[in-house]
């Protein structure tokens, strides 16, 4: 059978390729309002075509991962669909000229036509089409207009444009950087010349976009956003919603139902009963923690994060934070993996790829593993910390922040080399599409449940085994010098640290129930909270860390986080108890 022809959607970052991909194939590819969302290639089919959605790039070269992936895909394509942002033709046409030089059949989709009209930009499509020799379709992904014409044009096929650079692009490409610069200058001049056909009437950034970058109001706004997040997750979700889902829905209704149903089947002291219905049971602890406690918190957190992403606020935050991150040898872009880390550290470790150098990736990974709690854990930490007095909260936050800064400074001075500088294109502020937010939240939450579910099941089996064969007594006893004497905590906390090692959320969820049961005094809560926040990354994160960094560096990060967390805990115990 003949293989299906390959159609590729290429364009600058953040021009709406993924939305158009969704219209073509019906497959949801992650969409957001910051560049670099599509890190991997998504595949689907449209009529007789195999369709690929590739990472957005500003040009073709083999300088970084995204451009390499895109270049490989483009070289194999049978037809190229180049997506452009109608409000940014000056920038986007540059890539178009590079693509035309490849000599493959092409179609141009000028997206964001709703914005073009709003901004009173006039584009002479006919003249542009004639000069480029490639059919152009104007669409609006958000409004869904022009989609039929787009499909129709794809089925009709594209055409091969007139090459602009007078010499063959491919022959020279991999050999000479100076050639590259020369050809790029040439293309830039051509784009400037071409665009004398089109008029920009207004050349101003929106007022709100500028306010977010303002040295004073920007920070004020940032603090406001953080307080809103704290209020929604720490107060509303963690107290009102969790009370209902964990205590009533899962903890009472579900628990009574499942124990009533299965209790008669097994004798109380059998291993099966302990495994399924015991304190760490597969049918008791796992669903209650996962659905009653973590699901509402995680979904809420992801929704807020998606909202920030889609509005285009995240990139502005990156600019505000640049100066502070430069103290750690990072640039403002590192805020993206850091904030994602509050969602899931495992995922954030992969996103560190957007940082320019190996040095930056190592520093960011170490900071993520040591100082950033992931969503479920963060939400639980927020929930617990909202029960603390202001003084205790200050001690906890102060300790974690100062350690975060210390590790950053230390690594920046210890590691050789320099880091790359901020050069960040800011996407326009947009009103997010509600459906898109819901889809993204659902996708990420689903991913979380899948990922955490496996670890929870494994952890539950291990803990049930320990509990049934009296392993806990042995564990408590052997760790007692550490927990009781050094840290001044009840011996049960040894089990908590074991859970944290398996999956931090599991440990955090257990901590939550320990606090609710009143097993810990306030200073003890502060100590445990600090240790849990700084404690080792979970097994899933460790696996990714080893994949992204070297095994030696990963082990160093892992061991130092154990050392840091316990030594900080010990110091706090000396001061507070």
């Amino acid at each position: 059978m003949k293989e299906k022809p390959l159609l590729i959607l290429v364009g600058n970052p953040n021009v709406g390729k993924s939305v158009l991909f969704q219209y073509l194939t019906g497959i949801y590819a992650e969409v957001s309002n910051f560049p670099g969302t599509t890190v991997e290639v998504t595949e689907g089919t449209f009529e007789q075509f195999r369709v690929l959605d590739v990472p957005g790039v500003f040009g073709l070269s083999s300088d970084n991962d995204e451009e390499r992936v895109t270049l490989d895909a483009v070289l194999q394509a049978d037809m190229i669909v180049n997506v452009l942002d109608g409000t940014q033709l000056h920038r986007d046409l540059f890539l178009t000229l590079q693509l035309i030089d490849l000599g493959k059949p092409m179609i141009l989709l000028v997206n964001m036509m709703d914005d073009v009209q709003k901004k009173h930009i006039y584009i002479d499509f006919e003249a542009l089409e004639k000069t480029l020799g490639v059919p152009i379709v104007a669409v609006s992904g958000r409004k869904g207009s022009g989609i039929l014409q787009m499909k129709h044009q794809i089925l009709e096929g594209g055409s091969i444009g007139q090459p602009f650079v007078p010499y063959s692009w491919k022959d020279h490409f991999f050999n000479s950087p100076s050639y590259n610069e020369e050809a790029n200058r040439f293309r830039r001049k051509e784009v400037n010349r071409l665009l004398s056909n089109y008029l920009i009437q207004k050349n101003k950034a929106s007022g709100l976009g500028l306010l977010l970058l303002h040295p004073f109001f920007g920070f004020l706004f940032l603090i406001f956003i953080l307080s809103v997040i704290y209020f929604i997750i720490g107060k509303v979700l963690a107290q009102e919603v969790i009370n209902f889902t964990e205590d009533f829905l899962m903890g009472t209704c579900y628990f009574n139902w499942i124990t009533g149903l299965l209790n008669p089947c097994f004798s109380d002291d059998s291993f099966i009963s302990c495994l399924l219905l015991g304190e760490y049971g597969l049918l008791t602890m796992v669903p209650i923690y996962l659905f009653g406690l973590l699901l509402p918190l995680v979904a809420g957190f992801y929704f807020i994060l998606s909202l920030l992403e889609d509005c285009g606020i995240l990139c502005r935050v990156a600019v505000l934070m640049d100066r502070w991150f430069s103290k750690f040898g990072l640039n403002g872009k590192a805020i993206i993996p850091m904030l994602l880390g509050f969602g899931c550290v495992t995922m954030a470790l992969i996103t560190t790829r957007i940082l320019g150098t190996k040095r930056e990736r190592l520093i960011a990974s170490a900071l993520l593993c040591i100082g950033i709690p992931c969503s479920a854990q963060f939400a639980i930490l927020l929930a617990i910390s909202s029960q603390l007095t202001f003084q205790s909260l200050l001690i906890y936050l102060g300790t974690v922040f100062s350690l975060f800064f210390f590790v950053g400074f230390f690594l920046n001075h210890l590691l050789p080399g320099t880091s790359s500088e901020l050069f960040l294109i800011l996407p326009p502020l947009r009103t997010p599409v509600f459906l898109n937010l819901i889809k993204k939240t659902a996708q990420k939450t689903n991913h979380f449940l899948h990922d955490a579910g496996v670890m929870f099941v494994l952890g539950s089996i291990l803990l049930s085994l320990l509990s049934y064969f009296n392993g806990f007594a042995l564990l408590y006893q052997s760790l007692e010098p550490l927990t009781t004497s050094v840290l001044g905590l009840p011996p049960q906390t040894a089990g908590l640290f074991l859970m944290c090692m398996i999956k931090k959320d599991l440990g955090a969820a257990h901590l939550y129930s320990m606090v609710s049961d009143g097993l810990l005094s306030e200073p003890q809560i502060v100590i445990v909270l600090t240790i849990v926040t700084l404690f080792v990354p979970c097994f899933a994160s460790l696996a990714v860390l080893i994949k992204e960094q070297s095994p030696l560096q990963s082990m160093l990060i892992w061991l130092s986080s154990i050392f840091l967390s316990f030594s900080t805990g010990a110091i706090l115990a000396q001061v507070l108890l």
Partner: protein
Amino acid sequence: MKKKYTSFGFSLPLSQIQKNQYVQILSIPNSNIRLQAIRLGMTEGSCIFCLEKLHHGPVVVLIENQQVAIGYFLAQSIRTIPIKASFSKIGGLK
């Protein structure tokens, strides 16, 4: 409206320009950044507008209708020359 630029005749690093000022790029020494910048339309000779400047932090400039944030130390290495922009009747941006 076409913008017409008049040079003031002295050069300074991009990090020292002021908010709401037009400057013309004289040189971008970092070759990696130069390649990225060309793609966005920022080359030697092109005119940019400073939208915002954070103290010891990034400079946010407008390059061909696109907002770009440039880190402090990078901005220190880019030489610019302040210009005055005036408007004539017809035509697009340069």
